[in-house]
């Protein structure tokens, strides 16, 4: 039985997983969905209520019924032959998504994570209510396109603005980021642009440090992230060189809460971000169901690849 890894070609964390599975003599096939249809193919027939056939990827072919698990590592968009119009590409993309994606999504294998579960779990408002329901402390949050609502919310305490989705855009010939920012008086006096889309505002949580908690099946790992300058104190993604890490143990209530969260949203894997307040309380910020862990594995000596390899190796027996 084979483990299928769906990942971009440049994904060193996936490279490590290939090596880990090879070391365990577990057959592994890696594929980027960008290879479809030019370097990858699907040949699936519906028989007795399930899809049977083969998936070919580069030089490898694997039987669909021979898969034990699939690791979904944000593979790239399908790549179509040059010459298609944008309309044709759009149509082909939808067909590929519903065809190849649909067959894979239907397979009775262990997914880490199933892309539909990842997608459902990507909505931050859903994350916050799920976390609260699971007993985790969450920050006061406002979702709005109303300037008046922002003023009302900000009147009750220090407030940050943070993206609901990707904090990165491409513009003016390069890449820009819009990480978490504290709202200043100058922001509150000119809130133009709030009304053009939904925005997230959150109460600033005083912090001693932050923690990333990784849930991988039944295993749980946590690394404290200490910021060493003003920018990373607001959002640690601003400058990784200004961070230091150490392994920590979450309080029992947090450990129980994140496990329950994963159960509720059908996640085998989750990367949770917490702020630890000066009084020691852990406050949930978000959970990225596809969040990275590779840099923490080394920095805080967390054997996450091994735990995930266990999960993928066991398949539905996990």
């Amino acid at each position, binding site marked *: 039985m084979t483990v299928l890894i769906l990942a971009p070609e440049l994904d*060193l964390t996936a490279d*490590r997983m290939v090596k880990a599975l090879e070391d365990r003599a577990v057959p592994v096939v890696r594929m980027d969905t960008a290879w479809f249809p030019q370097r990858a193919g699907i040949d699936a027939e519906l028989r007795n209520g399930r899809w049977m056939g083969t998936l070919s990827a580069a030089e490898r072919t694997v039987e669909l019924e021979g898969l034990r698990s699939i690791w979904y590592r944000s593979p790239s968009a399908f790549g179509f032959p040059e010459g298609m119009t944008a309309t044709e590409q759009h149509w082909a993309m939808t067909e590929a998504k519903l065809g190849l994606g649909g067959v894979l999504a239907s397979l009775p294998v262990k997914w880490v994570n199933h892309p539909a579960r990842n997608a459902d779990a990507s909505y931050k408002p859903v994350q916050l209510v799920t976390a609260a329901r699971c007993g985790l402390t969450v920050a006061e949050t406002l979702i709005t396109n109303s300037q008046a609502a922002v003023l009302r919310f900000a009147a009750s305490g220090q407030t940050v603005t943070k993206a609901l*989705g990707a904090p990165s855009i491409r*513009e003016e010939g390069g890449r820009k980021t819009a990480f978490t920012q504290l709202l200043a008086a100058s922001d509150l006096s000119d809130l133009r*642009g709030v009304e053009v889309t939904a925005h997230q505002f959150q109460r600033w949580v005083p912090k001693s440090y932050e923690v990333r908690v990784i849930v991988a099946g039944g295993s749980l790992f946590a690394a404290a992230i200490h910021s060493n300058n003003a920018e990373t104190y607001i959002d640690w993604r601003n400058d990784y060189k200004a961070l230091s890490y150490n392994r920590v143990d979450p309080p029992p209530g947090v450990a129980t809460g994140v496990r329950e969260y994963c159960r509720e949203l059908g996640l085998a894997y989750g990367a949770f971000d917490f702020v630890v307040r000066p009084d020691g309380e852990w406050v949930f910020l978000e959970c*990225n169901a596809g*969040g990275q862990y590779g840099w923490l594995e080394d920095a805080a000596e967390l054997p996450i690849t091994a735990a995930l390899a266990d999960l993928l190796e066991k398949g539905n027996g996990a």
Partner: protein
Amino acid sequence: MTTALTPPPELDPFAPVSGQFALRGSTSVEQVTDIPSPAGIRPFGLRRATPVRPGVTIQEWTYDSEAQKAVDAFGVPLIDLPHMGPPTANTTSSVDGEDPPSAEDWNND
């Protein structure tokens, strides 16, 4: 007689992102040459978007489909090189839904 048309997925605001099986990227052409709109048009959340700091530049690599890993010019897996460091970039920003740029590692935190 009227016919109810099913809107295309991208026009359904409540369609789950799972409608996009390959979550990262799309076939649409990125408008990297866009310039910011004036205040009032530009979303407030992008007001303080700033150019990224220099990230970690991954050395020359190719994907070895036999090894199923990225390798250097000599065929050595990048993860086996002593100076590679941890496998996740020290730069960040992408979450589900973005193409990775080719010359930088922008894997998400």
